[in-house]
């Protein structure tokens, strides 16, 4: 991997270098992209082990597509957002099919210390959000996650999901309303009873 211009190579250039046999390019690419992929999966799934599985799978798909990647067709980061979002909604769907776990069923220690208790409640809230996302239609869940968990702008979400900006607005609005309805009965358990 030689870059005499001094500017950092683009993701696409690194992927092309990897495809041409440059192993070091893969390391740079992984350092650059893996934190974002893992973060997206963690925020959406609220499960560290599952998020790591999804992140690894998303990167596997990147390595596999390296030889066929056409520079200029799409941003690799955009493509990865889409792949990760799809993998996450697949996981949420499977999770929902296998067992619905009410928030009240999350085991608590008999006498948790305040710090541990707060951490558990945070974990439980994130799990509740992931479970609520699992109950949304896939496109709504992805749009809400990209907008409100990843902080992407609507035009970028439109690119990632390959839909119009208007559709993004509609999906996020409907998705958020549905989330509120699903979570309405759990406000006390979520720790929002005093709001």
């Amino acid at each position, binding site marked *: 991997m030689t870059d005499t211009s001094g500017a950092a190579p683009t993701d696409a250039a690194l992927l092309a270098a990897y495809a041409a046999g440059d*192993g070091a390019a893969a390391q740079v690419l992984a350092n650059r992209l893996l934190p974002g992929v893992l973060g997206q999966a963690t925020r959406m799934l609220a499960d560290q082990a599952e998020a790591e599985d999804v992140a690894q799978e998303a*990167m596997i798909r990147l390595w596999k597509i390296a030889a066929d990647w056409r520079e200029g067709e799409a941003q690799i980061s955009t493509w990865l957002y889409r792949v990760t979002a799809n993998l996450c909604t697949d996981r949420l769907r499977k999770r929902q099919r296998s067992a619905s776990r009410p928030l009240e069923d999350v085991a608590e220690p008999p006498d948790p210390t305040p710090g541990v208790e707060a951490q558990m409640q945070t974990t439980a809230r994130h799990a509740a959000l992931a479970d609520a996302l699992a109950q949304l239609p896939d496109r709504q869940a992805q749009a809400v996650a990209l907008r409100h968990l990843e902080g992407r702008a609507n035009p970028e979400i439109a690119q990632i999901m390959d839909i119009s900006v208007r559709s993004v607005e509609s999906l996020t609005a409907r998705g958020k309303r549905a989330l509120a309805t699903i*979570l309405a009965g759990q406000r006390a358990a979520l720790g*929002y009873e005093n709001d």
Partner: protein
Amino acid sequence: MTEPENKSVDALLDEAASQMPEVPAHLMAAVMLDAARLQPTKAIVAPRPNLWDSFLDLIGGWPAMGGLAAAGLAGVWIGFAPPATLEAATAQILGSSQTIDLFGGDALSSFDVGEVAQ
């Protein structure tokens, strides 16, 4: 959607959005192993030698082929126009050519087929 419900969903989304997990070393290692395993390699396929290449290899390549061609041409040339010294040498070695008449010259040519039948 009531105001408290909206507020709690916003708060929950904001809280979830603030999660920035560190990449564990074992995950990075697994990703790099995958990268090495799946790296496209330009397969080096040895071209299948054709019959001519096999023949060249058999006789020792192009230099041997040149020698073979020269020897062949020399043979053809000597066959058509043998030098006088070669004929002399051949006569010396093999002796001069002799004609042996086993049937007495033209005896057979005047031999009548009818006489034989009798």
